[in-house]
Every structure is written in structure tokens, then in C-alpha cells.
């Protein structure tokens, strides 16, 4: 019988550690960087106690490369970083997309570009999470806004990574990463944990990219299954190919395995949208400002509502398109100079779209959003 879990005050990054461990993560490799360092610290303390491994690599590229290796050996693997480190990880992120290696990458967003403002918040890596690595590739990014949610969304990120055999990004800003809120650690079994599909065939019949599967199971290295892993387009046995049919099919399959399951991957929170005339679309700490602003607007008699994507990538096209047919205006506050607003504009069929932006290292406060809401009244 699971005992009642005690409420404790916990930092966002600490909750990320709890989420990773809850999901069964046994391997962490990375290079510490503000404002994500507490994740590396936490994993370095906790993993050795449960038979896991922590390794600090020579840099961020080494961190994700080692995590890819850990995952290929069958362990749920994590790396965490912030903007400058996320830039360095992009090459290996694309490798993991094409080689179809489950992996969770946390990016705690700080001010940029370059080393920018290490201790200040930002949401300017929204497009980088989707397009940072070259080539067409699938991208899944989850965007928690509350400390408790960092735990649950980190678990979901591992589940999505294992289920769809792809890297998944946990994307949140410095405010959410460093703030402390009371949370409870869920009891074992309370949250669903997805483990990697077992390979059932014999080693000599195994193909890591067997096109008969939508998502071929991945055999752990060291268990008798020998196969090739490469960042080149490959055949079903993993060796490189120049055959255009196989290149095209491989590239399409890694996209299709995500596109065919959008309804399972998408996740949104909706507040007051039933009768809203003005909607706000926001993520992370900005969504918390937006929620405050929407409640204030309601108390002023303005019918406002909030759509908060918890899955930012793939972008919630359907939800935004439907919303845009019902409301007069959509306001998109984000701590960058206009990234998510471009996606909202792309999906919006009718409503006017207005961005509210800020890049001075200060959060977008509720007052700024209330002003934007009032401008449509």
C-alpha cells in the first residue's frame, strides 16, 4: 500500500529530476549550465543511489552524444541544458531523430542570443526546439508552467520518447525552472509510465528500421542484437543507402509516426474558452500571467479565455484553427520578438492575431496582457 505522499516545497528543476526518476530514467549525461544546473546536480546525487549512472561530459555535445549511447544500451536517458548548450546539442538532436533514438532533452530557456542573460528568463528557443537541427524531422516539445506539472510533463516526455522512438524536448523558461511551489510526488503507479517495446524476434531476424512496422522496436545493445546506427539515410538493417526509394520512405516514416498520432500527442489546457470573444494563447510562465490577466478581464466584464498548449510541438493546429473561428482576436504573449505568434497566424482562419513581446529579461506581466485584451474591446 502506497503511503500518502507529503507535500513539499520544491523548485521546478528539482521537480524535473523527480519526474525523470519516476519515469525510470537511469542515465544522465550533460554539462551544467544556468538555469538548468539543478537538474544535473539532482541527477548526480540521486542516480548512483538507484543503480543509475551520471556522467558530466566535456561539453554539451558530449552530453547528448553519451545520452544517445545510454539509450541505445537500453536505458531511459536524459540530458538538460539551456540556450547556448541547446545550440550545441542540435547536431546530435537531428541524429537521434533520424536514427530514431528515444531521449529526453530539457532546455530551460534563458535570455539570448549567444550566452545572453544567464539568470534571466526567455521563451526565444521556441522555434529552435522545432527547427534548430537541419533537415525535415519530427519534433515533440512539451511545455510545463507549474512545478507540479514539470514533474508530470517530464514523465510524459519519457513516455512519448519511448513510445514514438524519438527525442522529446521539455521546454520551459527560467522562471518556471527556478520558482518553488508546494508539490506532492505521485505514488508509484499513479502516473502511467511507458517502457520500451521489447524485441521478440531472434537476433538474426532483427532489423532496427524494419519498414513493416510503423515504429520498429529498438533492441538494446549488449543483448545479442547487432545492428548499425548512422546519421546517414539508411536501409532497414541500419547501413547507409543511396537508394532514393528507401531514402524517401525512411524520411516519410519518421514524420508519419508522429503525424498519425497527433491526437495522442497534443495536450492543451483551456480556460474560459466556451464563450470567449478574446483568446490568449501562451505557454510557460507567460501562461501564468495570461491566466491572471484573463481572470482580471472577466472581472471587468470582458469575455476572455486562455488556450495553453502543453504540447507545443507538434503545434496544436487543430485547436488554434477551431479557436480562431470562434473568437474576435487571439493575443499571443511570449518572451521573444515573435515566434509562436507566427504559428498562431498560420493556423488562424478568421480572428485577428496580436503578439505581445518582451526581451529585456523581465517577465510579461498581467498588466501588459490586460492592455492587449482591452485594445479589442
Amino acid at each position: 500500500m502506497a503511503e500518502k505522499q507529503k507535500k513539499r516545497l520544491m523548485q521546478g528543476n528539482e521537480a524535473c529530476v523527480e519526474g525523470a526518476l519516476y519515469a525510470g530514467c537511469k542515465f544522465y549525461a550533460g554539462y551544467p549550465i544556468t538555469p538548468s544546473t539543478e537538474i544535473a546536480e539532482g541527477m548526480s546525487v540521486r542516480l548512483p543511489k538507484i543503480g543509475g549512472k551520471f556522467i558530466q561530459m566535456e561539453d554539451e555535445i558530449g552530453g547528448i552524444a553519451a545520452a544517445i549511447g545510454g539509450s541505445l544500451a537500453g536505458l531511459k536517458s536524459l540530458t538538460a541544458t539551456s540556450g547556448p548548450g541547446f545550440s550545441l546539442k542540435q547536431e546530435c538532436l537531428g541524429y537521434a531523430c533520424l536514427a530514431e533514438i528515444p531521449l529526453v532533452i530539457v532546455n530551460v530557456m534563458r535570455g539570448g542570443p549567444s550566452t545572453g542573460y544567464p539568470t534571466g528568463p526567455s521563451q526565444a528557443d521556441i522555434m529552435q526546439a522545432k527547427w534548430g537541427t537541419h533537415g525535415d524531422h519530427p519534433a515533440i516539445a512539451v511545455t510545463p508552467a507549474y512545478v507540479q506539472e514539470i514533474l508530470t510533463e517530464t514523465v510524459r516526455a519519457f513516455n512519448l520518447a519511448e513510445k514514438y522512438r524519438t527525442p522529446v524536448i521539455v521546454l520551459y523558461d527560467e522562471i518556471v525552472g527556478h520558482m518553488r511551489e508546494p508539490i506532492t510526488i505521485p505514488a508509484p503507479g499513479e502516473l502511467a509510465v511507458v517502457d520500451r517495446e521489447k524485441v521478440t524476434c531472434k537476433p538474426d531476424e532483427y532489423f532496427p528500421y524494419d519498414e513493416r512496422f510503423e515504429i520498429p522496436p529498438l533492441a538494446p545493445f549488449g543483448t545479442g542484437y547487432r545492428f548499425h546506427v548512422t546519421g546517414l539515410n539508411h536501409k532497414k538493417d541500419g547501413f547507409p543507402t543511396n537508394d532514393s526509394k528507401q531514402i524517401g520512405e525512411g524520411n516519410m516514416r519518421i514524420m508519419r509516426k508522429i503525424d498519425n498520432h497527433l491526437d495522442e500527442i497534443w495536450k492543451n489546457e483551456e480556460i474560459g474558452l466556451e464563450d470567449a470573444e478574446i483568446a490568449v494563447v501562451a505557454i510557460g510562465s507567460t501562461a501564468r500571467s495570461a491566466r491572471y490577466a484573463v481572470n482580471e478581464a472577466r472581472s471587468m466584464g470582458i469575455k476572455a479565455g486562455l488556450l495553453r498548449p502543453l504540447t507545443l510541438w507538434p503545434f496544436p493546429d487543430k485547436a488554434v484553427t477551431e479557436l480562431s473561428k470562434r473568437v474576435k482576436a487571439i493575443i499571443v504573449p511570449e518572451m521573444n520578438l515573435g515566434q509562436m505568434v507566427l504559428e498562431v497566424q498560420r493556423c488562424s482562419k478568421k480572428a485577428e492575431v496580436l503578439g505581445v513581446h518582451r526581451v529585456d529579461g523581465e517577465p510579461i506581466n498581467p498588466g501588459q496582457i490586460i492592455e492587449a485584451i482591452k485594445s479589442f474591446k
Partner: protein
Amino acid sequence: MSKRYELRFSGSGGQGMILAGIIMAEAAAIYGDKNAVQSQSYGPESRGGASKAEVIISSQPIDYPKATAIDCMLAMTQEACTKYHGDVKDGGILLIDTDEVKDVPKGKFKVIGFPITAAANSELGKTIVANIISLGLITELTGVVTHEAIEAAVLSRVPPAFLELNKKALQLGFDSAKALK
């Protein structure tokens, strides 16, 4: 807005302002029956520079985690006071360390002064407990959390060898605040 109680602890990096914020949040949310969110803002340096921690306390769920209209702000240094006092609301409290803050800002808030760091030194022989004295002062002045809750929160964060010292620091804060009300 009236449902939120907003506190800001400001001083120089290394003075324990973030720890004070954490302890206040725990007093409210773990040892009390409220919701609390603690956030912080600091520079790249681990010592020096202006540093602040904010705590929002409410009986409702807390959305915006940063201060908007501060009910009570602590300023341990002149730099922090000058930089951060602007958000103290009309009728709010600005608690200053009188030895440090000489240029006292004017506004529609109530300024309360106490030689916090000097008292830590002369009464308890440890500058390091100035932040705990501050928690005692703020608890007594505002009543935002109970004496029992703040004491439980302080003691849970302190190594066993320093329990008595911190208890005394907190009590010094409670007692000194009574004369300041």
C-alpha cells in the same frame, strides 16, 4: 488582487534573501494552510550585487508568480532598496536595515527601520542570522503566517547545531517588532 499577499526580500547576494523567501513560502504552504510561490532574481555573482526573492501567498491558486503590488518588502542594503522599492503598494510596509539604508525612499507606504545586521552581531554574535531576525520581524509585523509556522519552517532548514541560535534570532525578531508597530 486582495487575495494575494506579496513579499519581497532584497539585499546583497550572500545575505540569505533567497533562503528567507524559501522559509517564508514553506511556513505558508507546508506548515500553514495557504498556497505559496517563491521566485527569485539574481545576477551572475554568488556574492554581492542586488538580489531579491519574492513570495506570493494566497488562499487561492497562484497564477502570476512575481510581485505586482508588494504588501511587505525587506531591504537589507541601500542598493537593493533603491532598485526594488518601486513596487511597494500604497499602505504597504517597507522594512529597512537602518544601518545600511540611509537614503530612505518616500512614498505612500510605511517605512519601518531596525538595525537588523547590527543586532545579529551584537545580540547573537553572528551576522549570518540577520535573515532569520528579518523573518521574525516580518511575521510579527504582518501576521501573514503564524509564529508556530515560521518557527517550524526555520528549524526544518537549519543544521541541528544551530537550532538554538536560529530560535533566538527568530524570537529577537518577534520581540523587536512589537516595539515597531
